[in-house]
Structure formats: C-alpha cells, structure tokens
C-alpha cells in the first residue's frame, strides 16, 4: 500500500514537472497530457501527441489525457481499472477549467486492460455512451496490433471530432450518428423483383405435366380411417435475453461520482 502511494505521488510530481506539461487555463496547474509510464511511445511521438492534446484542450475546454502503465494495480488498490482511472483523475486533479472537463485513456500492459474515463458536463455532452463506443472502436484495433502511436492519434482525433460535433449542437449519439448501410435496402427489392419476374415468366410457360389428380376425387371420396395424434414428450429450452447496453435511447450514463466511461481488454 505504501509502495502504491509513493508511486502515485511520484507520478503526480512527474506530471507537474514534465517538459511537455501544458499550461492549462488561467491559474491551472501545469500537467502533462501524455503520461507514458509503460514506455510505449518514442519521445518525438509523445511530444506530437502532447501538442495535439493541448490544442484540443484549448479549443474545446476539455482536456484529453493518455496514461500508459505497466500495471494499474501498482497505482491503486483495486482490481477495477475503471475505478482506478476515476481515483487517479480525482487525485491528480485532472480536467480543464473549474468544472474539470476531461477524459482519461489508461492502458495497463500487465493484462492488456484499458479504461476510458470521462468527466465534466462539456465532456459528457460530447462523449455520449454511443460516442464512447464509437471512440473505442477507433483506437482498439490499433492497440490490439500494438500500434500504440496510431491508437493514441485515433483517440485524440476522434475525441476532437466528437467535441466538434457537440460544439456544433449535434452531439454524436444514437439518433444523430450516420447509420451504416442497411443491406435490406438492396436485398428486399432484389428478392421482390425476382418474385415478380418469376411470376411473369410463369405466365409464359403454361404447358406443364400434372402431378396430382385432385380434380378427379369423387364427391366425399376421401375416407379417413385412422386419425391419431399421440403426445410423446416435451422439451424445454431456455435462452437469456440479451440486454441492450448501448442505452437505446441515447445520452450519457453518469455514475454517482460524476464519471462516465467504459473499460475492457485490448
């Protein structure tokens, strides 16, 4: 426990004194946006990401942070990386302005965990649950291929785009997101056209062999001698109904500590 506190404090000190530390809005403590404790990024790449993050913070009033660590459990006494992210966000006093708007992306390399933690009303408006899923989709494939710099660039670029959408009054959400192409748009008309053409073709081919003789059954000519319906057994299957976790109606799910976000493996 003592070791964890010391590590955490040291990291906080690093953040404050780091070269790339951005001067936040008036009176804000200078904090680095990119904290590459796991050593995944070359210095120049880290610097480029730092500059881009600072630019986003200035433009949108929402600070995007990147934190890579060997194992998040070295920093916080929890097995939940999302909880660790919330604790660090609060402890390090991250965020932009008085409302502390910001988002933190943590990569923990020990078990390849990630967490996206968002905070503040500006952030929550831009990063809806649906938007968070979209953001995660953008960077997760890079991280799965160990493309760290590419994944972080996608994180910052997509984050900036989501903030821009919110700034323009149309946050990216279930109802406003452009929908993917629906294959039914093509399949239904093709099937219907095929049916119509088959019917029309059938009108042209009317000479066919008869296979039945229904017209020649004499009146009341069907006598059923045996009509048996015997119940043999019963089978029961159970299926769990999958809950739709995307929120369905849209919006942002915020917990009791004022955070939102998601976590998982990469």
């Amino acid at each position, binding site marked *: 426990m003592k070791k964890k506190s010391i590590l955490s404090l040291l990291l906080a000190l690093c953040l404050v004194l780091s070269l790339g530390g951005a001067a936040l809005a008036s009176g804000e403590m200078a904090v680095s946006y990119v904290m590459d404790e796991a050593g995944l990024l070359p210095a120049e790449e880290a610097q480029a990401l730092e500059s881009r993050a600072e630019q986003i913070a200035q433009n949108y009033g929402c600070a995007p942070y990147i934190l890579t660590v060997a194992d998040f459990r070295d920093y916080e006494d929890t097995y939940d990386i999302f909880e660790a992210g919330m604790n660090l966000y609060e402890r390090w006093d991250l965020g932009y302005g008085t409302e502390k708007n910001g988002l933190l992306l943590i990569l923990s390399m020990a078990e390849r965990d990630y967490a996206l933690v968002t905070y503040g009303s500006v952030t929550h408006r831009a990063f809806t649950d649906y938007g968070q899923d979209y953001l995660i989709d953008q960077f997760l494939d890079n991280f799965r291929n160990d493309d760290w710099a590419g994944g972080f660039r996608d994180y910052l670029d997509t984050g900036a785009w989501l903030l821009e959408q919110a700034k323009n009054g149309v946050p990216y959400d279930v109802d406003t997101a452009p*929908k993917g*192409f*629906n294959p*039914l*748009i*093509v399949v*239904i*008309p*093709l099937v*219907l*056209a*095929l049916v*119509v*053409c088959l019917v*029309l*073709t059938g*009108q*042209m*081919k*009317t*000479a*066919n*062999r*008869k*296979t*039945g*003789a*229904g*017209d*020649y*059954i*004499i009146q009341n*000519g*069907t*006598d*059923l*001698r*045996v*009509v*048996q*319906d*015997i*119940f*043999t*057994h*019963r*089978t*029961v*299957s*159970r*299926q*769990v*109904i999958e*809950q739709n976790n995307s929120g369905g109606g849209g919006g942002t799910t915020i917990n009791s500590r004022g955070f939102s976000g998601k976590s998982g493996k990469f």
Partner: protein
Amino acid sequence: MATQVTNYQCPACTGPLHYDGASGKLECEYCGSAYDVAEMEKRYAGKEAAAAAQAAAEEAAELGEDQGEYTAGGESWDPEGMKAYSCPSCGAELVCDETTAATSCPYCGNPSILPGQFTRMQKPDYVLPFKLDKKAAEDALRNYYKGKKLLPKAFTAENHIREIKGVYVPFWLYDGEADADVSYAATRVFTTTRGNERITTTEHYQVRRAGTVRFEKIPVDASSKMPDEHMDSIEPFDYSELKPLSTAYLPGYLADKYDEDAEKCAQRADQRAKTTALNEMNRSVGGYATCIPVRENVRLRRGAVKYALMPVWMLSTQWKGQNFLFAMNGQTGKLIGDLPISRGRLLGWFAGVSLPLMAVLYLLLGG
C-alpha cells in the same frame, strides 16, 4: 364395292356434313341444313357397319400377304405406318397415319370417317363433342397474348398461325382407389418470457393418418403424337357431357385412335393418384408448428378403364424460325402453350421493380 371410309352427306343436297359444336348438330356447308346426331346415326348405321366390315375383311386379307403390298381393294398397308384410303366423295387417295380415325380429303375437303379404326382396336366408350369452333380457338389465342408482359413486342404482329386443327384426342380414363397410410413427426411450440429468460417449450407428437381416396376418370392422353404437358394442362374436362361414341360427332375434325395402351398409360394415372392421396393425408393434419412425414405407404387399386375421345384444338405458330404449339380444350376453352420471353423486357421489369424500391427503402431506412 364397300370402302373403309364413310362420309356424312346432306340428305337434301348431298353436300358434306360437319359436326357443329355450338348447335350440337350436323350441318351442311352448302345448303345450311342441320340434322340431329341421332337422326344421322340411324341413317348411316348400315353404311358404317359395312365400312367396318370391309375394314375387317381387308385386314384379314392383309394378314395373309406380305406387308408393303397393295391389297386387292386398292388400299395399302405401308411399312412406315401409313395407310391409304379412297375418298368416297372424289375418289382421291387419302394417305393417313395408321391411327387416323377421322380426317378431311385434301382434294375435295370432305370430312371422312374411318369407322374400322374403332373396331379393329378397342372402340371408344365415350366421345366428348366439341363445343367451341375454330374461330373461338383463334380468338382465344389472340386473347392469350394479351397481358403477357414479357412477350416480345414483335411476336404478336409477326407470328402467324401456321396450322389450326380440331382433334379428337384419345384418352384413357382411369377409376381407382388409393389406400394411404402416413406417419408424421409433429411439434407444437410455446414460448414464454420469465425475467430475462425466453423459455421455449416444444411438445412432440406422433401423428398418423390412414384412409382411402377414391378417384374417377383420371385422364391420360393415349396418343404418342400429343405432348403430355399440353394435354395435362388443358384439363379438366366436364365429364357430365360425355356421350357414348358416335362417329356423327367426328365429321369436320381429325380423330386418332390410341397408340399407347391402357397399361402403359396407367403408370401416369397411378403416380397422380398416389401424389394426391398423400396430399389428402397431409391436408388432414393441422395445428402443428412442424409436421414431417416419416413413413409413407400408398397402395393403389385400379378400377375400370374407359376409352374416350376428347376435343382439343391444336394451334401452331411460327416466329423467327421457331415453332410454338398451343392447345385449347375444345369444351371449356382453356388455352395453354409456351410463349417466347423478351430478355430486354425481363431485365426491364427486374430493374423497374428493384431500383425504385431501393430508392424508397433508402429514404425510409437511411443509407
């Protein structure tokens, strides 16, 4: 000298008579007189009997001679299955298939009957007289083209009726019974939701249906010259108008005797009876989500077989060097036949249906 060929002549003017389906009488083309079938049957009974007797006698004579030689009566038995007769009206030689029972003289146009054809082989039990005439068949064909969206535009204008003939086609009519015994594996499915679980209960049943289906007069055409598809497709005929055979119904039309025997054709009737018996059993099973036959057993009992002549108008047209054959039920007017398909129109319909629908769905469902 007696001849195998007879023709019905008008008692008033000796002009040739033909059977008119609309009036149901024998009519004279020249003086317009009309005669009841029964009346003419009576008048010509002796003449027909003589023709039949002559045919029998000549056939007996033929048996004693080598095939291919002319008979003493001047009528021939051709090795390739053709027969030659003398036209009783103009004396010209009529060369016909050996199955021909009624025809017209190509020289004088007189309708001619060969009664001997129905005595040497089995005599038909029934004849179903024509009710619709040649003009009705032509009109039916023209109407048949209407509303055919895929018919090439030029077809209607450019194709010409090459031949149209009214034919009494020989049919076997089969009576019989089919005993069917079918077992099915069937299920009923109920679905309920409890909490976050969907519970599906499937009840399994062993279903059995057994019974007898009785058929009367399943028709199978007995002429190898007639395409089975065409003859099947103009069914059904209204059997209530079947008449006992009288050659008085034949003048003006062609008629063939059968060249496929009842035993050979019975297989098709059996197959149709079997399929229908199974369908009847299937129809009696209801109320299940699934019902799969696991055992089927059908036993057929053949009954009486009747031989009948059915009225069919055969029309053939030609377009771009291809022949198109149509058949019309001479009693009910049902006309069938395959038509050419315009590839351009087919593609046009496919695109015309699919593309606007895609546009509408795109607007409704979003892209």
